[in-house]
């Protein structure tokens, strides 16, 4: 809302310059967008949605009059002498959508330009001057906040205005020249036959006033906000009028605006009234009356307000304030009635002073002016009291803690742990948008189509991500295009399907496996680097995992695995290497790890000949399998362990997990640990075979093991490997 400073001064004699006035109103809740200096200074305010009354010079002038404790001068609204009434019939059929409809006929005397003073003000307020009649209607709208509309009476069939819903299939051309299809829940102002205006939104071209107009009908109405908003959105037509009506109009401004327009028409010699005011107002609305309790003010604000200050603050804003007869007087009231324009004071409640007793504070009866459509209950009056001094007098205190907090959300802590492990593993945290291009999402969407947005910003953000990987691949490609080869990124966050959302963590890794060093040892990232991160993460989250070969459209064949997560049998058992109990519910496919295909990389702008490895895990699935209790500390081994190495030749395609499984099932219970320490193919090893070296640790919790019994165990292991896998000891 652009407020021309001189226009304001006409209504309130503010003593300050334009900057100081802007700052003062800014502190009362009217945010200043900009201040234009110059010959016609203008303050542009961002008016909040609750204050349609301040989409007007008068509304802002009222605030200024309260802020400066200066009287508000009301503009001239005296009705000039009227000529004989023409034939005009107004029927209000939809009082639900239009509670009040006023109209008045005017004889057009001169449709030329409006006087310079009016043109200057309109232009300062951002409105183009058109002709004397239109300029007056715009002037009234800017001054009072009440939109009006002029019809050419000669163009209204049957000399009638009918306020009704649009008929099914009805069309009309609005003032902007666009032909519009109307729908039955839209309110129109029609003549005897056809719609001539969309109520509260825009007039029609057919009955627009022009050079030939001799008699016009000026409409000033109050339209229901929800209806105007719905219609304006449906038609894609946002106007000065609809902006004001959808926020709520003053029901009593309808006749007042006509009087104001008549006075202005008279002043500039543009038109003269014919007949009397037509006022269709079937259910007159009494003003809202509210009870305002002194103790409630203190209770909400944390400060008590002197009794005399309440009428002093509310009066200038247009509220009628009366102390109720049942009010109990306190010491504060001894100061008696405050003068009408006194700068009120707010006093802080000191921490050690007890809250003022509610019984000592009075209650007021407040009548809300009809232009304050935002004031509906007591709390709204309390805000009026609070904002009076821009919260400057408000002390800074702290809320008391009165009860212990429930335990924190485990998801917050889990996310934090996941981030810590991955950062410690060398991955940096990325954040990508939750919506992606459909083409990028499709390969990652299992079974169903990804969840789409109804009104996406663009095709680039059309669907909700079914996986975190498309965003991470894009982020890797972004870095790669900026000469960054070594990219290690992870993200935690929600991913979406048509069945809802799910928390996940994913990572991509390209380039080197370690930070390059002059000592050499440089090597590119491989499957086992990324698998190791997954293993470390799952170990931290205290779940058992296994990997099984898998096939995915975005992973290279033979370089992808599913991650199977199991609940830990028990902490102690897991540490001893015992096989976890495998029941159906305690085992879930919780993710995958693999190498991204060249085509998937190329599609997103990453060089296809470079290796990118990735993993993604379902955090919710892992969380469901995490142990609930505390870690049980285990006593440390009291007897020494015996370590034996074993090298065997097996088929190259035999999974290491099978070898490990055979060893575990054939070994004595004293076997506590197995680890592969070498895998070799080449000279000395037959073509389709591989040399696998394993280190086994044996230990008993009760005694020192003898060489003989370990040898015996090893023999049984070798025999089992020979029979199960045709393994040959090297």
């Amino acid at each position: 809302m652009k407020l021309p400073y001189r226009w304001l001064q006409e209504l309130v004699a503010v003593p300050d310059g334009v900057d100081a006035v802007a700052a003062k109103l800014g502190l009362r809740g009217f945010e200043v967008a900009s201040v234009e200096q110059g010959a016609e200074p203008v303050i542009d305010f961002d008016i909040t949605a609750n204050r349609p009354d301040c989409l007007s010079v008068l509304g802002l002038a009222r605030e200024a009059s309260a802020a400066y404790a200066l009287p508000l001068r009301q503009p001239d609204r005296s009705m000039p002498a009227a000529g004989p009434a023409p034939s005009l019939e107004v029927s209000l059929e939809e009082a639900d959508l239009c509670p009040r409809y006023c109209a008045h006929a005017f004889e057009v005397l001169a449709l030329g330009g409006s006087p310079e003073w009016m043109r200057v003000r309109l232009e300062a307020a951002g409105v183009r001057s058109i002709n004397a009649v239109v300029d007056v209607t715009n002037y009234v709208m800017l001054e009072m906040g009440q939109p009006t509309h002029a019809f050419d009476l000669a163009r209204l069939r049957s000399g009638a205005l009918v306020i009704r819903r649009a008929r099914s299939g009805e069309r009309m051309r609005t003032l902007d020249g666009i032909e519009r299809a109307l729908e039955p829940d839209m309110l129109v102002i029609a003549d005897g036959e056809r719609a001539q205006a969309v109520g509260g939104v825009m007039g029609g071209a057919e009955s627009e006033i022009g050079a030939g107009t001799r008699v016009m009908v000026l409409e000033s109405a109050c339209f229901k906000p929800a209806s105007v908003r719905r219609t304006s959105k449906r038609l894609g037509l946002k106007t000065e009028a609809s902006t004001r009506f959808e926020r709520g109009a003053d029901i009593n401004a309808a006749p007042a605006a006509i009087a104001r327009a008549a006075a202005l028409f008279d002043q500039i010699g543009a038109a003269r009234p014919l007949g009397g005011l037509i006022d269709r107002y079937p259910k007159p609305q009494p003003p809202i009356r509210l009870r305002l309790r002194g103790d409630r003010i203190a209770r909400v604000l944390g400060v008590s307000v002197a009794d005399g200050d309440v009428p002093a603050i509310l009066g200038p804003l247009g509220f009628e304030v009366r102390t109720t007869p049942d009010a109990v007087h306190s010491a504060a009231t001894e100061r008696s009635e405050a003068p009408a324009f006194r700068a009120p004071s707010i006093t802080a409640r000191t921490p050690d002073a007890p809250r003022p007793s509610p019984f000592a504070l009075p209650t007021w009866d407040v009548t809300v002016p009809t232009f304050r459509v935002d004031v509906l209950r007591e709390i709204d009056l309390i805000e009026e009291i609070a904002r009076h001094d821009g919260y400057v007098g408000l002390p800074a205190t702290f809320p008391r803690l009165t009860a212990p907090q429930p335990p924190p959300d485990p998801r917050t802590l889990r996310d934090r742990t996941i981030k810590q492990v991955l950062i410690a593993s060398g991955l940096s945290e990325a954040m990508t948008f939750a919506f992606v291009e459909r083409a990028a999402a499709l390969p990652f969407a299992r079974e169903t189509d990804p969840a789409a947005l109804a009104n996406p910003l663009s095709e680039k953000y059309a669907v909700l991500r079914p996986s975190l990987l498309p965003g991470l691949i894009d982020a890797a490609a972004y870095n790669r295009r900026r000469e960054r080869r070594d990219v290690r990124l992870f993200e935690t966050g929600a991913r979406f399907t048509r069945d809802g959302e799910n928390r996940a963590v994913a990572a991509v890794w390209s380039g080197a496996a370690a930070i390059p060093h002059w000592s050499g040892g440089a090597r590119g990232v491989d499957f086992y680097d990324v698998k190791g991160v997954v293993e470390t993460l799952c170990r931290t989250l205290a779940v058992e995992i296994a990997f099984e070969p898998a096939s995915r459209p975005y992973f290279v064949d033979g370089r992808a695995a599913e991650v199977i997560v199991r609940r830990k049998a028990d902490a102690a058992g897991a540490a001893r290497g015992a096989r976890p109990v495998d029941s159906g519910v305690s085992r879930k496919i919780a993710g995958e790890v693999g190498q991204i295909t060249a085509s998937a990389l190329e599609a997103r702008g990453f060089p296809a000949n470079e290796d990118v490895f990735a993993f993604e895990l379902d955090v919710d699935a892992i969380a469901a399998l995490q142990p609930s209790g505390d870690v049980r500390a285990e006593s440390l081994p009291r007897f020494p362990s015996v370590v034996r190495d074993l090298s065997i030749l097996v088929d190259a395609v035999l999974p290491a997990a099978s070898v490990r499984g055979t060893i575990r099932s054939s070994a004595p219970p004293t076997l506590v640990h197995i680890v592969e320490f070498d895998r070799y193919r080449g000279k000395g090893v037959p073509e389709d075979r591989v040399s696998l070296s394993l280190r086994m640790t044996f230990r008993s919790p009760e005694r020192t093991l003898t060489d003989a019994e370990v040898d015996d165990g090893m023999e049984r292991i070798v025999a089992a490997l020979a029979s199960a896998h045709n393994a040959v000891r090297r």
Partner: protein
Amino acid sequence: MDISSLKQQFTAELAAAASEAELRALRDKYLARKGGLVSALLKHVASAPADVRPALGRQANELKQHIDAQVGERLAEASARRPAADAVDVTLPGRDPLIGHRHPLTLLRDRIESFFLRQGFLIVEGPELEDDYHNFEALNMPAEHPARDMQDTLYLASPVTSATGTPATLLRTHTSGMQVRYMERYPPPVRLIAPGRVYRRDNLDLTHTPMFTQVEGLVVGDDVTLADLKGTLVAFAHDLFGPDRGTRFRPSFFPYTEPSAELDITCASCGGSGCAMCKQTGWVEVLGSGMVHPAVFEAVGYDPERYTGFAFGVGIERLALLKWGVEDIRLFYENDLRFLEQFPL
């Protein structure tokens, strides 16, 4: 050359000799059997007149011993300084461990969470897919409410099953829905923050992204006041921006709070005197807040006569722009490692 000037010359040359090789060459120059300067001098002594011969001989021998001792001492020093054969070059670069970086928004979120945890707040998290009721209606924003324009919403093409049971139709525009859910479930007192990603249909520019991160707070009790809100937010601003930063708490409007307030801090670029960044006001807006509207309490079944409360909401990206002088909010979502690695681990 006489003995004393020969000694002088040696002293100067010894001072100039740095390496072990130079020291050895210096000793040879004076003491070598063949061609050494002192050796030549000693030979010359034999042919000197008898009366000066003993003194000359003694002086020449003293010089020889002096040179031998001095060079010997310096050689011993040099040898002691010589590094061990297997010594490391401490000036070569070390091997960097592989370690990643927290995203700056996580860094700031952790910092904010830690402030509110110290004040006894609970952290709650909730769904990103929401229904209209929890995102708008329960927050005093019925359908066709003009304030809905303040939060342009991204809607789902078709409803999606939500973890909370009701079908979700939109991407949450704020985390307030979580506060509603919490109040529906638990009686007062309430003292929580709800951090998370939120979505609005804003085109990308220097200060807008269609997804951003919010932290909202809610305190409800028998005795919670607007003054308590001011105290809490001013302390928060001072924790984040330093105790010297000016703060301003001023009236505003949100449909779910009444009275509503915004918190400003003095502009960092001009220090409060007014510049382009703060639109000449000297202040920059940090967050929105207010006393919970009684209609919200009614929607969740709290008695608005008995309880009062405050709520606030802040965009972490906005705080990050203000705190670190980041000029373009899009940087947070481009994931350029050169940007991410600028922030502490």
